[in-house]
């Protein structure tokens, strides 16, 4: 009994004014307690490095891209569009098999295949990258609006139903048929169809994620929508987006080959992998000239397979579930 009275008597001594003041929070200190050594991109990179095959192919793609850029500046390179003449006869140096001067031989009108292949790879890669980029930007924007905004959901769904019902190939053919063939036409034609898939992907994911508890909590705390989208939703989708983008590049390269094949591709003066394969196809019947088809085909296959494998490996690595 006596002990308690003592406590109560002393209570006013113990209480000080500062105990009843609000403690000032500091963001920096708050972060410090939750500090961890985890960094998303570093972990992604570390997981990616574990996939030997993908790393090897990534190095290869880097070398190829660098080579396509620097190849024209290397010594002893020929022009991809110049028609070479035979020194003795003065005729076009047609269909010369690979030799010391023409490393990959010449084509049916005497152009150097080696430099044409690298120029073609440059064009095709450029088309692929631009298409992938546009698809990503348009697809993500529309997909986010579609999944996040309830007002826009119905109109975009209707639009999607129409666009998705037309076979992609038909749209590609139609657009290329109407517009004049050039690099920009091909890019436009591919972008018109390409965003649909990406948008649907993003939309489906966002519909799943937007009502999870952490987002509801975030919303209740008054986080503006754009911040929820940019900070809570999109980072979650990086692996999906990267996978789609890396698949869009081989697809765009393939679509260019297809368009060239049916006669709606780039003009011959603009070397591209599609053009080269098409030129090679014409000569397929004579076994001696098949190198003109085989060389571009090999380059094309290596590049597309590399992008496919790298994309898959990166998507795996970018998924936080696979991080240590």
């Amino acid at each position: 009994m006596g002990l308690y009275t003592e406590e109560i008597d002393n209570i006013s001594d113990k209480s000080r004014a500062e105990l009843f003041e609000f403690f000032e929070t500091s963001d920096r200190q708050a972060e410090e307690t939750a500090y961890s050594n985890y960094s998303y991109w570093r972990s992604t990179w570390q997981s990616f490095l574990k996939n030997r095959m993908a790393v090897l192919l990534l190095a290869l793609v880097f070398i190829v891209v660098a080579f396509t850029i620097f190849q024209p500046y290397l010594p002893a390179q020929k022009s991809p569009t110049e028609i070479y003449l035979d020194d003795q006869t003065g005729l076009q140096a047609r269909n010369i098999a690979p030799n010391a001067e023409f490393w990959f031989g010449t084509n049916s009108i005497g152009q150097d295949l080696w430099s044409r292949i690298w120029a073609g790879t440059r064009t095709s890669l450029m088309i692929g990258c631009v298409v992938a980029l546009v698809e990503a930007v348009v697809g993500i924007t529309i997909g986010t609006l579609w999944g996040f905004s309830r007002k826009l959901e119905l109109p975009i769904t209707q639009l999607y139903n129409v666009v998705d019902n037309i076979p992609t190939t038909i749209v590609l053919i139609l657009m290329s048929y109407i517009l004049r063939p050039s690099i920009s036409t091909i890019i436009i034609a591919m972008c018109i169809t390409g965003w649909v898939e990406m948008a649907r992907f993003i939309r489906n994911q966002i519909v799943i994620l937007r009502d999870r508890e952490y987002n509801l909590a975030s919303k209740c705390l008054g986080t503006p929508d754009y911040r929820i989208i940019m900070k809570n939703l999109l980072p979650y989708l990086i692996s999906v987006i990267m996978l789609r983008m890396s698949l869009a590049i081989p697809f765009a390269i393939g679509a260019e080959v297809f368009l060239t094949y049916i006669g709606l591709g780039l003009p011959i003066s603009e070397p591209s992998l599609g053009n080269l394969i098409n030129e090679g196809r014409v000569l397929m019947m004579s076994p001696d000239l098949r190198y003109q088809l085989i060389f571009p085909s090999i380059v094309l296959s290596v590049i597309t397979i590399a992008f496919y494998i790298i994309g898959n490996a990166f998507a795996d690595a970018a998924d936080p579930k696979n991080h240590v």
Partner: protein
Amino acid sequence: MLIRHLLRTFTAIWREGACMLWYVGKRLVQSVMTLFIIITIVFSLLRLMPEEGYLGAAAEKMSPAQKEVYLTSLGLRDPLPVQLGNFYADLLQGDLGKSVTYRTDVPVVTIIADKIMYSLLFGLGAVALSLLIGVPLGIMMAQMKGRWLDRLGTGYIVFVVAVPAAVYYLVIQMYITDIFHLPMLFDEYRPITWLLPLTSMALAPTASYAMWMRRYMVDELNKDYIKLARAKGVKERTLMFSHVLRNAFIPMAQYLPATILFTITGSIYIESLYSIPGMGGLLVDAIQRQDNTIVQGLVLVFSSLGIMGLILGDIAMALVDPRIKLGKGESVR
């Protein structure tokens, strides 16, 4: 007692069937609407086509005034809604206009009718072949996960999915015909020439079927009820075929339309490579000769085929998946 039981079963089946019919009917109406929108868009876009495509071989000899008169006589100077109305009126009578350069003045419908059988035969043949090979391949890959067959299959899938079709179609035509001394071009009366185009066309859908089948099988195999069934002592065979396969097959139905759409692309390549007299080859020819009316007709036929493929896929999905409630709540795939 027995009669009542039979009656009840019968009503249940009848009710289910009625539901199915209602669903199919609704889906058909929806598709006709979509088709209408697509045709309108395509038709309007096609008015932007190069005008030489309507003039044919005589174009160079015509003076600008003559061209103008000719185009007016074709109705191409009318306002767009009028043209559209005329087009629909003709379409309902089965008239798609006349060919310009491909076979001058022959109705497009006749030209396409001659060709459509080949395309359908090859398309359906390829889809059937790919189902026959792809699904068992996927099952085997899932069963032997991580072993050589699985790796081989994965390699095949990566190759086929990543490399543009044009490249391996050409390689197949070039080397396989050489090795086995097969004729390079298609000949209706020599069955052996059907083989290569069909297999080439089936390559890509086979890969996608195998890929998805494997993925769904593996997903299903990791589930708890499988572990329980194993612990209970269910035979591996029974487990695979009556539990795992049954469930893994459901999501496969949704890839059917995609494959059908894909064979359209495939047919365009393959038919002109092997000179099969089908619609795909015709499209390439018509584009190269700038025959606008044929291009327009073919685009419409291909779009309708695509939409039909999608309906089929949806119906297949509804038939296979008991969880889909017919007639209620549509959702985006």
